[in-house]
């Protein structure tokens, strides 16, 4: 506890590459949850030791495939009710996962635990510049309250420039949902 500031946690963890089970990286992090105003994201500082598998080739294949689609990509329910993800949608899911990480960070407190539950809808937005843009509606599962929260996020991506969430907002739920 830090008086008048908040609560700081010191963490030592191991990161595992989901796509390469043998790929692990050691990580130390400091997370500071601010006192009072719950609208500020926690401060996070981290260092990593080790390198993860290079994904340049797969990134470029995906990038080129999407860039050259005649009609904008549109999809829904990823994974579907049975947990299936069509292989060509896997990069779309991984991108959502990375972007959702940012949204989750911005909205976390000591009393929340968010997971990405599902992509309800994703639509590609064509751009004239080199970036790929996707408009996602995702479902976040908040484990403490058990609530499912629909969330819109606009995601930009480029193989060399990484992921960016340019816009995001929680969506209202209908009482029947």
């Amino acid at each position: 506890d830090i008086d008048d500031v908040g609560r700081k946690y010191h963490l030592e963890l191991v990161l595992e590459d989901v796509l390469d089970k043998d790929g692990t990286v050691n990580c130390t992090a400091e997370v500071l949850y601010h006192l009072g105003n719950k609208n500020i994201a926690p401060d996070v500082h981290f260092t990593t030791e080790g390198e993860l598998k290079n994904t340049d080739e797969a990134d470029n294949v995906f990038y080129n495939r999407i860039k050259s689609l005649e009609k904008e990509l549109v999809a829904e329910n990823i994974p579907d009710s049975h947990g299936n993800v069509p292989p060509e949608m896997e990069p779309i899911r991984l991108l959502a996962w990375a972007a959702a990480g940012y949204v989750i960070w911005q909205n976390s407190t000591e009393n929340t635990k968010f997971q990405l539950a599902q992509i309800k809808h994703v639509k590609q937005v064509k751009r004239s510049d080199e970036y790929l843009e996707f408009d996602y509606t995702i479902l976040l599962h908040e484990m403490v309250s058990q609530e499912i929260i629909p969330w819109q996020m606009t995601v930009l991506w480029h193989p060399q420039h990484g992921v960016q969430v340019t816009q995001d907002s929680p969506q209202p739920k209908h009482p029947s949902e």
Partner: protein
Amino acid sequence: HQVLRIKTRNEEEIKKLHLLDSLEHLELDFWINPSTPALPVDVRIPTNGVQAVKAFLESHGIEYSILIEDLQVVLDKETQDMACSQQRDRSSSTFNYGTYHTLDSIYAELDHLVSEYSNIVSKLQIGESYEKRPLYVLKFSTGGSNRPAIWLDAGIHAREWVTHASAIWIAKKIASDYGKDPSITSLLNKMDIFLLTVSNPDGYVFTHTTNRMWRKTRSKNPGSLCIGVDPNRNWDAGFGGPGASSNPCSESYHGPSANSEVEVKSVVDFIKNHGKIRAFLTLHSYSQLLMYPYGYKCTEPADHAELDAVGRAAASSIKSLYGTTFTVGSICTTIYQASGGSIDWSYDYGIKYSFAFELRDTGRYGFLLPANQIIPTAEETWLGLKKIMEHVRDNPY
């Protein structure tokens, strides 16, 4: 109709394919569209155009191979296969345990298990859901009268599909292992097992028809537009306390009073009437946890040491199969304080061996666990349950 796989080498060839595509009279149906030379192009060609397309490709030196020689043959076989498996589905030996099923399909399989293993399996109805669906419990028994018994339930939360799927697999496992596996055989020679595979049928149906993420029951809340009560906040254990909501629109709404939900009351009545339930085990997903009381308060139960030891042994068994790790502890210290939960009620009622499982995974797929993980999940979970059941068998009270 033939399906060709075309391997383009450069953008030029891609352009030529776009040209082909523009010739409408050929009625080409691209299964994989020409986009980048890195990916193959698959196209279905009606019979009349096959020769012309092949001639075009060959004259431009574009490489291709025949993926499907005659599509009709493939389709005919598929129709035949489907008719065959539909017929087979009606006999129990081919219920596919590795896929998610509708309520009707699960209920049909319960009947098949009863008829296939009639010497040890019978089905009881312990009540009806809010929307009047039967609540069916399978009883595994080798006889005696009112033997001490173990209770196991799944699907109290509708969206936790892997629990229903695991429960039906476990039912099959218990029935088929009797007489073969020494442990289960000796267990059933002394005790009965009661298994409620779908605790919340209304919710489960709703996840199939309308909202895959539904959790609660489907009861109407007077004065509110919101439907349903969290059945695992509705038990008479610290009811209405911290960790449950008084808002009907909340996923953890505790309901107007303890046991207000018929799905909960039916189980409570059954357990009380039976009088000799020695273990109460319940399946949830996800998070990979094995928990004992309490959830409604953060103090340790009197049997804390024993429950923790049994829990650890069970987690160890689970891990031995596929390396899946489960965290063991009380509900309050492991996840959060939550009042009105089922194992808190059963423990305070006098059922010492009360455990709640949270099955796979830890968040990567969450509720949407891929079907190919159903059987591995059921197999490892069964090892954990068996460990607990063996301890119950060997420690009568």
